[in-house]
């Protein structure tokens, strides 16, 4: 393997950047942002150089022993004696999966960094923003490169912390602070399960290293995969993905997290953080057995449907895209559950392109509209913001799955996976969601870019600067062609050993191999677009609520999940907390602590009297001590 140092540099440059900004350059906006952009762009360049030198299939690990407690050798899972030692490495896993993710995180992330340079220009805390961005990038790269569960968990939590900082970046707004807390706490709930899963794995198998675990599973697949404890471990680990990838029932944080600045939404909620859950599932796919996969598939399918329905009746431009993210993540999780890691990672990759594009284009619209986010105050923006318009259209077509845009290919591979597994229920759900996706995407599109200007801001909107439009154009290119530039080959070779490399034309024609899902996919997408066109072409207000009635209200209020959680879990939690608080304050602090603390303090004051400062006393006490020890040893 050439350039062994590069992956370490890629990982640690953003940390260095965050440290330098936090310690030295917080006063200079320009220098700070350039340092941060430099770190991630350098990471991208190094990734490209590393891949061009080694290819995608290095399958290497470089690791340093970080800490070992107990015996040097880790326990063999089949031995009967107790757990003998914990060995923790700090290592980097390099294979097609992690290298592709590196490209996405540094590539898409780099574009978002550049975009932020202009987007955050008026903000006084721009330097702090870039410090947080770098910290976030470091954490995300850490997840991607980890070669063991414990290290991944540490970075997993770091992503949680840095996303908390970014979502709550405008902490002056109470809603931003609340959203940050909600995201963090909801994620922690999932992470608790994740940690339990990791402990279970360690307790049963005695190793946390992915490579070692995989070989243990390969050697004992029959006994292990049918064991109940492995199902439990798999589901607990899936809890982590439920939190990070915002699956039902922990999906509630993602839409609120739109309170962060738009580049943050693009970075966290399109390309990186929410992808971490899906990535993790693919990384540890070998330990998920059929029962666990079944649950995963249905949770994913349900989330996809739920989020798509909610998105239909949202009016905030960012929230619509956020719910579509949820829905697409549901697709990916469902694909993992249906044994389709390649399809899941393929969709994750194309989704990173077109969803980052949609978020950034929405950010451009929001800038042009002077921070107005309600789509019913926009309208007719296509002439005033032509580049944003075109790029948004490309993103919308990709999201809706219209050929030959990237989303069509990845979504089609998920559909094909449903049919291959003969799961017709989930196929039906997937097709329905595809129709809904096209509908709400083009509802947004027509309302924002066509019709009449619905406010003064819309009349005076203007196109954004080059620093903003250039990343849009780059992302638009990839959103358009991402389906047939080889992505599927790299993942395929990782997950299916007998995968044959497809040529360019083969990739282009791949969907034709399975004509049924392809035709259904295209048809529902076109129906969705047509419906959106006929309803919203010139609409000034939304005609749907009148037609759908109660259903529309339910969709608009996100099926009352927040309210239900508020009334049950949060209420119960508050009650328990109040009881614990009372016990703590009166019983523990007042009574028990009072006695212990008072007693300790008193004994300290008493003992202090021994130290008189008088030398004769000291000598006497010394000899007394000798006598005491002599008696202790010889007196009995």
């Amino acid at each position: 393997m050439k350039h062994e140092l590069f992956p370490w540099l890629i990982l640690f440059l953003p940390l260095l950047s965050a440290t330098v900004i936090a310690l030295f350059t917080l006063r200079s906006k320009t220098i700070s942002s350039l340092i941060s952009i430099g770190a991630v762009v350098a990471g991208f360049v190094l990734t490209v150089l590393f891949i061009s030198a080694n290819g995608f299939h290095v399958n290497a690990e470089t690791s340093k022993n970080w800490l070992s407690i107990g015996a040097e050798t880790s326990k063999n899972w089949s031995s009967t004696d107790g757990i003998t030692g914990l060995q923790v490495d700090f290592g980097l896993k390099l294979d097609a999966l992690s290298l592709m993710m590196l490209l996405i995180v540094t590539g898409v992330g780099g574009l978002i960094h550049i975009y932020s340079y202009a987007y955050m220009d008026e903000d006084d805390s721009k330097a702090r923003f870039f410090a947080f961005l770098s910290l976030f990038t470091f954490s995300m790269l850490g997840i991607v490169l980890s070669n063991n569960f414990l290290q991944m968990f540490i970075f997993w939590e770091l992503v949680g912390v840095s996303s908390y900082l970014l979502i709550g970046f405008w902490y002056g707004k109470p809603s931003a602070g609340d959203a940050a807390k909600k995201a963090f706490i909801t994620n922690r709930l999932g992470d608790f399960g994740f940690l339990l899963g990791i402990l279970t794995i360690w307790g049963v198998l005695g190793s946390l290293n992915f490579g070692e675990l995989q070989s243990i599973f390969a050697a004992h697949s029959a006994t292990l995969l049918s064991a109940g404890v492995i199902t439990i471990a798999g589901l607990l680990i899936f809890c982590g993905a439920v939190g990070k990838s915002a699956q039902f029932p922990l999906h509630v944080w993602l839409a609120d997290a739109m309170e962060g600045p738009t580049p943050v939404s693009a970075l966290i909620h399109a390309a990186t953080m929410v992808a971490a859950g899906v990535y993790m599932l693919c990384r540890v796919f070998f330990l998920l057995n059929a029962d666990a996969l079944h649950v995963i598939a249905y949770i994913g399918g349900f989330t996809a449907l739920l989020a798509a329905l909610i998105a239909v009746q949202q009016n905030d431009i960012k929230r619509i895209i956020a719910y579509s993210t949820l829905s697409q993540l549901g697709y990916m999780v469902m694909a993992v559950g249906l044994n389709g890691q390649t399809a899941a990672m393929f969709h994750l990759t194309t989704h990173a392109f077109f969803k980052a594009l949609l978020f950034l284009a929405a950010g451009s619209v929001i800038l042009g509209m002077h921070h107005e986010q309600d789509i019913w105050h926009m309208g007719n923006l296509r002439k005033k913001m032509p580049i944003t318009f075109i790029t948004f259209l490309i993103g919308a077509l990709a999201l809706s799955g219209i050929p030959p845009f990237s989303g069509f290919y990845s979504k089609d591979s998920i559909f094909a996976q449903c049919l291959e597994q003969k799961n017709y229920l989930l196929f039906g759900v997937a097709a329905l969601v595809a129709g809904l996706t096209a509908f709400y995407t083009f509802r947004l599109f027509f309302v924002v870019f066509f019709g009449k200007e619905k406010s003064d801001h819309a009349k005076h909107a203007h196109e954004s600067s080059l620093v903003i439009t250039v990343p849009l154009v780059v992302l638009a290119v990839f959103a358009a062609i991402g389906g047939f530039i080889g992505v599927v080959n790299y993942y395929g070779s990782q997950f299916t050993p007998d995968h044959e490399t497809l040529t360019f034309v083969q990739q282009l024609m791949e969907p034709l191999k399975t004509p049924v899902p392809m035709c259904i996919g295209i048809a529902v997408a076109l129906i969705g677009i047509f419906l959106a066109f006929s309803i919203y072409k010139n609409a000034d207000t939304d005609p749907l609520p009148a037609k759908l009635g109660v259903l529309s209200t339910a969709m608009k209020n996100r099926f009352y999940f927040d309210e239900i959680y508020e009334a049950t879990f949060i209420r119960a939690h508050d009650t328990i907390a109040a009881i614990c608080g009372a016990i703590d304050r009166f019983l523990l602090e007042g009574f028990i602590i009072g006695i212990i603390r008072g007693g300790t303090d008193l004994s300290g004051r008493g003992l202090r009297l021994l130290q008189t400062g008088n030398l004769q006393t000291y000598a006497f006490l010394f000899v007394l001590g000798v006598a005491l020890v002599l008696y202790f040893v010889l007196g009995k």
Partner: protein
Amino acid sequence: MNSSFLTLEFCVIALGIVLMLADFFVLPERKKYLAYLGIAVLTGLLAISFTGDGICSVFGTAFHGSFIEDPLALFFKRFFIAAAILVLFLAAEFSDRIIAGISEYYSLIVFALAGMLFAASADDFAMLFVSIELITITFYVLVSFQKNRLVSLEAAIKYLILGALSSAFMVFGIALIWGTTGKLNFGELAQVSSQFLDNKLFLTGVLFVLVGLGFKIAAFPFQIWAPDVYQGAPTPTTAFLAVGSKAAGFVLLLRVLFIAVPQVTQQWTCLLITMSGITILYGNLCALPQRNLKRLMGYSSISHAGYLLLGIVALAGSAGKSTDGGAAILYYLAGYLFTVMAGFSVIALVARHLADEDISSLAGLNQRSPFLAATMTIAMVSLAGIPPLAGFFGKFLLLKSVIAQGALTGHHAYYWLAFVALAGVVISIYYYFGIVRAIYWSKEAADLSPIQLSGGAKFSIALSLAGIFWLGLFPNTMLNLANEAAKVLGN
């Protein structure tokens, strides 16, 4: 006799003589910088101890077996040299407060270091006594060096008289051992000591040697001198006393207990457990109402002697089968070195113009010098044993070794000792964070003038901080070294 074993010792003694003679040739205003000459030479020696082929990597004995070079000795020699380097940095900062004879002060530090190096290699009772006297007598002078401060002289007198008392016990103990067994060499004694397990004169002799060593490490009930001497001595001396002198006591304790008289030690596990527990509680409880920083550090150093005794207890209980306790002691000492040096550096720099060294003198430090404020905070947090700093991992290893011993033997005493140690940690958090609170949340700060730091001070503090974080975050390198050195203590 192979004199190459003594390379480090010869070089250090030569350095001490050079520093003393330099007094005649160097201009008075430049004498301060002689410390950097010492630092340079010692850094060179430290490097040689790691890389010099055939100088430090060859093990064996000299002087008819009274001097031994083994991994344990090497570990402690590196430790002592590193400690002396940091103390010399501190002494250079402190030089303006020593009226006359700063070059003598430096050379005495170096001579004390020579004593410690011999202590690390002592393999019989004569060498033990000579090396410990070399350390102690040098320290009598070092403690009294601020001749214009009455407290400094008072501390020196107390240290001298109590030290003489403990030496008397020790030499009496050695005489009893020799009288009963006819052996002075540790290795030879180990072969015959099992015949004397019922001989009360022999046991009294061993016990008196322990009294002398207990005095050096300030363990209960021989701790009584520590607060007064720590408070009165010049700050660099206090730092060296806390780190170097204590570690010298521990290396000799390890050798006597586990190489010379292992069978006796096993019988005395109960005594050691009691001593350890009471030392921890005594140090921590007395520190609670303390307002003087250096006196507080004195009590804190007593409690740390107690924590270190946990490792001795684990070793004694395991009867040479496991050396985890020994490795934990070595690791803890390494972390303690960096932490204490960082803490005393801040005390020396902040209390520069204040006659008293009260906790309140730290008020407003975060405005006067954020660097020093952060350093003091990190040092206190590490002493309290909070991750991810050096103090945490050291305490973790010590407690783990004791609990492992409890699990192995099933004796409840080990668990009680671990519980007492944890209670001690909780109590200590109160006064360590009292210091942190004084730095950041004091209402009235009399003096808010910025503190200027010299390059040397910044460098040495940064070095200590790096050490604290390194040992806390990347424990493996040091743990391997400690394990290697502790193997000597097993059988």
